[in-house]
């Protein structure tokens, strides 16, 4: 088993917290922001983190990351095929 150890990228310090937002909540959030899903920043379904959390095209993913100005910032990404 040399070097075959599974690396969980979510555990890495530089990977911010990702989570799939439930459909009803996602609709609410989109309404609040006043955007269509396509106007959100995108996330490819083939993105390693997206695969890890099981995000499917059409999902909205919430990312909570550190920010030098605000301390912590919540952003949303729309998952697309690819």
């Amino acid at each position, binding site marked *: 088993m040399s070097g075959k150890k599974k690396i969980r990228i979510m555990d890495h310090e530089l990977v911010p917290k990702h989570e799939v937002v439930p459909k009803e909540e996602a609709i609410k959030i989109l309404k609040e922001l006043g*955007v269509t899903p*396509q106007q959100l*920043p995108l996330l490819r379904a083939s993105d390693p983190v997206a695969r890890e959390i099981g995000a499917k095209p059409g999902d909205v993913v919430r990312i909570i990351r550190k920010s030098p100005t605000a301390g912590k910032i919540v952003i949303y990404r729309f998952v697309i095929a690819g």
Partner: protein
Amino acid sequence: MVMKEEKVIGAIKFGILSPDLIRKMSATAIVTSEVYDENGLPVEGGVMDPRLGVIEPGQRCATCGNTLARCPGHFGHLELARPVIHIGFVKHIYDLLRATCRKCGHLKIPKDEIDKYLNLYERLKDKWPQLARSLSEFVKRKAIKNMECPHCHAKQYKIRLEKPTTFIEEGPLGRLWPNKIFNWLDQIPSDHLRLLGYDPNFSHPKWMIIRVLPVPPICVRPSILLETGIRSEDDLTHKLVDIVRTNEKLRESIASGAPEVIVEDLWELLQYHITTYIDNEVPGVPPARRRSGMPLRTLAQRLKGKEGRFRGNLSGKRVDFSARTVISPDPYISINEVGVPIEIAKTVTVPVRVTPWNIDEIRKYVLNGPNKYPGANYVIDPTGRRIDLRFIRDLKAVAESLKPGYVVERHLIDGDIVLFNRQPSLHRMSIMGHIVRVLPGRTFRLHLAVCPPYNADFDGDEMNLHVPQNIEARAEAKTLLLVQEHILSPRYGGPIIGGIQDYISGAYLLSSKVTLLTQDQVSDLLASISYDGEIPEPAVLSPKRVWTGKQIISLLLPENFNFSKEAKISSGALKCTDEECFWDSYLVVKKGKLLLGVLDKAAIGAQQPESMLHFLIREYGNAFGKEFMDRAFKLFLRFIEMRGFTMALTDIMIPEQAYEEIKEVVEEAKKEIDELIKMYREGKLESMPGRTLEETLEIKILDVLSKARDKAGERAVKYLDPFNNVFIMAKTGARGSALNITQMTAMLGQQSVRGQRISRGYRGRTLPHFKRGDIGPEARGFVASSFVKGLSPIEMFFHAAGGREGLVDTAVRTSQSGYMQRRLINSLIDLVVEYDGTVRSAYGELVQFKYGEDGVDPKNTSFGKAVNVERIIEKHVGWKK
């Protein structure tokens, strides 16, 4: 007036002109290469055919019947004897030829796959155009690879493109002449084209082969009449004549049944002419030249580049009501003002509508006419007729005829608002609104404190001035663009407009402890700023009533202002970190009274956030900030004038004894370096981590030499009066630094090129004055002389080498950063902070969920810090910490 029906452009579609469309929009066919007949009149059917549009004023257009001003010009067309390739589409044609079958024209992909991809393509097209494009690209690549047609099973051959326009099949077809290519492209089914990203209805690839050439209207290529009476034609016309002539020859030789070789030669010539007609800078094609040898400026050259149609005419425009001249300083005007020469004030004008309230005033302007200031240049009556006052004999009659509703274009007068700009306009403070002050002289005058935002100096800089022409623009300029609204920089929040140079020296000297002012001096100072308030009790009553400079400065501060901060001079021996300060290097203002400390760059300087000036502006507003700067700066200058301030040679001269000491320092350093070199030669020198032995030696030598320079500086400075003029400037931050003083008095130190000691020149040495292999300090650019003592010829050479590098660096940096700036601006220009605090692109795409992630405007912060608790406490309580 009846409103016309409003039409909105919903979308724009680009395509390729089809031969049918070219014929349809054509006013006439071009049939002859003759341009003018023996009478000098344009030949019908030539490239200057009158049906292509009016050229001379007064004529009526043969096509549309309009006069010169209203005729838009009309296209003609030229039927080519043989088709040619459009140079702009060569790449597309090449790809299509390779991707489709040579026999049946089908895309070289099995039918079921085509259907599958087409289905996917149709679904992607509207929502994800980018993805659709990459799908087309993928399909194309796949089709090119296939060497057998899946539809008709014909064997495919490799197709070679011999730049620029020759296609050769390495198979039975051989040279693919444009007519063959046309037939090939014509065969491709519409669906297959659609899959490849072409819209066959608007840009069918067969139209990439030119069979009919549109001939642009004459007004696109006007001829110029020289003084000698000779007509000089436009480059495009020349090229068109070439094309028509070659086309004629080609047609004749085909008709007369000339040998195929000759026909093909002419065909190639026609291809060359049409290629250069479209783009005269195609690689591999010799550019068509004028008789003088200048390459012709053909279609692509008209559009391309900095002076092309896009960058030169559409994005960049020339304007009226603007002026440009040299700038010079004027410390007596307000920072909000600009001094305008009378000559300019009489040329650029402001339109004013006549009303019952201003009619008397405007009559005066009209009476003065265009030559007497303040006058007027034009009168526009309500019908829109312009009366040029230059040609009016009886100004009085015109003045009498003025009635409300007239518009008068009067000269600029004091109090008008104008926009003032210096290139390069790198940030929004590069264009600010100024209030006009008409002054004698021929230069624009501006206050010294507004030099930093414009990055201006007076070594010959020129600036531009624009006069807003309507009330809305003037109001906007006054409320948004006025200089005082830009004192605080949106970059870091601090004042970008503030004290510089003499203002700082003056402030320091006036606020210094030793400054005591008699009643006469106080009166002089306060009169210079038209102070009309009370004068406080003098600080010293006996033996003479004298005031301190701090008392005078306090008169300008608001009554409830509290502030404390270390001064710029607080360093070294004069270091103070709290109010217990013997050296007067800790600034304390309580209840608007300057109690302790001096004003220097840290208190009133430009580009100094969290300074006294910064908080005065933040807490009392821009208008107060402007008022404070106008008054305080005038006061500081008046004081520095009274006291006198200069820099003399004696300020940087040191006695002989000091030179001895410096010599000692140099000797010591040399000895140390000799030691290092000896160790290196003997291999005893240990290398530093990650460095070679040579690098280690260089680093150590540089270290020793820079320490030697600092030490020499210290020794020299010891002999100087620490309160002489040069030191005052360096310490307060007005101008110069400790290093500058060291270089003037003690020594220049090591000169460097690319961060290294100077080592190149002759073989093994920098100059023939040294032995080969000498790596001692002198042989590698160490300068032990000072500017005061003077440099030896060898030292001067090294100094010049180092200085040259600096010049080259700045030249390279400005061009590179300028290009980076341009690209950044082009990519970020449409981003907008919406009312909900999000940053969005022009299409509503979210870029940031909150501006800067915290929603804070840096202009209202100091260095991006939104809340400064310490400052809030100090502001209200009067102390901090």
